[in-house]
């Protein structure tokens, strides 16, 4: 490399560094896309495939949900004389196939996905427990809104 080229290369490197530093400094003052989880929860929207709920009064015990379940999370369990689906969240992958195949809309998905439990047994739900509403934590929620300048902007709701 000739001395002149070397000097030009150094100058180019210097401007590159300066641009990078300027760009970084600019972003110190820009607001960020951050949700302070778990103090604040993100609203997951109406279509979110979260934890499931069975409406046992509508269920016709057709077993289609248990048959399509890809991870064997749903199983038919005997209650009195008929069988109804029970679920284990140890296996559920939240694909929502069971909801979409149910011919009478007896299964529905909620906007909650916090399936954490203290014991493994709590994640196995019999049909009676499965037909209760999933626990939805009472915490402040924010809704993501799209923004051209910031990407996502979170507004409390």
């Amino acid at each position: 490399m000739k001395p002149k080229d070397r000097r030009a290369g150094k100058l180019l490197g210097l401007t590159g560094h300066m641009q990078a530093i300027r760009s970084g400094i600019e972003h110190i003052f820009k607001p960020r896309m951050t949700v302070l989880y778990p103090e604040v929860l993100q609203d997951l929207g109406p279509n979110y495939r979260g934890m499931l709920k069975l409406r046992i009064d509508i269920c016709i015990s057709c077993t289609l949900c248990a048959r399509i379940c890809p991870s064997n999370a749903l199983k038919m369990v005997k209650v009195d004389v008929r069988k109804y689906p029970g679920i284990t969240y140890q296996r559920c992958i939240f694909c929502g196939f069971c909801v979409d195949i149910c011919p009478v809309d007896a299964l529905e998905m909620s906007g909650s996905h916090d399936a954490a439990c203290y014991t493994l047994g709590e994640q196995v739900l019999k049909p009676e427990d499965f037909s209760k509403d999933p626990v939805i934590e009472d915490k402040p929620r924010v809704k993501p809104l799209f923004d051209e300048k910031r990407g996502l902007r979170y507004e409390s709701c």
Partner: protein
Amino acid sequence: MSEEQTLELLIGPQHPGSGHMRLVAEMDGDVILNFEPNIGYVHRAVEKIAETKTYVQIIPLVERTSLPDTANHNLGYVLALERLLGIDAPLRAQYLRILLAEINRIHSHLYGMGIHGNMIGSTTMLMWAFGDREPFIELAQRLTGARLSYSYIIPGGVRRDLPQDFRNDALKALSYMERRLKDYDRIFVHNPVTLARLKGVGVINRIDAARIGVVGPNLRASGIAYDVRKIEPYCIYPDLDFEVVVRDEGDAHARLLVRIGEIEQSISMIRQILGKIPDGSILADRYLDLVPSRTRFEKRSSVKFPALFSGLKPSKGEAVSRVEASRGELFHYLVSDGSTHPYRFRIVTPSFKNLIAFKHALLGQKLADIPAVYGSLDYFPPEADR
């Protein structure tokens, strides 16, 4: 000991810097003489498990081979299955499929770039790229209901229609991304540190790239304009106007630039799709007729599966499909014996084909170049191991 000896250096299989695999490098001082990636640490026997599941149950399974790139894997499998079933998706469903595939390509490339940045010490790039994935993951979530494991594409169509306001939200996210690409350019892509680490490092020349069978952005960075979306177009790619991004240098930096170029192309493709997506059904009539009319999708946001989906029986035969996943050409091969389970299922993933590039790109390089080249290949071990 006076005799000079080479050193066999083991890197990994613990994650940082090596991925879920072990790298065996034969070193002469600081120079790599021989390089052997030792894979298989995240093998999950996806192909064998698939033989025990029904055809629709395999959809979530094939996604698990590559979680950053689920939509393309889902699409590839469903295209093969549709060929076995002899069914075509309606036009609107095909547009929605490619819409999701391109959203997925953007956030998958961002994932790769972020990891690459982290590997060569630019933590800013990691944070920015992972942060900027969020708008696209949020878009995909509004469309499909899940953040990564979409399971959105089903035989004969897709599961959900475009939500209200999706078009506006998507356009905002796209112009945000365009703005951010300029920031990336200053802080990472043309940063002198990045240039010094990546320029001329890990070169795979044009002839070698073709000979060893590298695919995807890694192949296009070596000067070969091979893209399944152009060579063997599927779904609606013939109707879309896009370029195959090619660079001639073949080094780690060229591979980075190709990915940036592909993000720009995907942005333009999503704009075109949103502009000309036709109205109509999103599930093939053959399946729609089997669903009770009160649960048809016109009355709800998602389609109802016909009961038939719990035990689809394609006729005897075999089918293949090729799609361009984010990391390259993805190949699915499906053999049916007429029962509810596939007789044989084979996936050839792009990462598996790109693995051999390690051996070629790293010979004669310095030890410190391993992460730089590893990141530039955007290799995803779970995808290669299946």
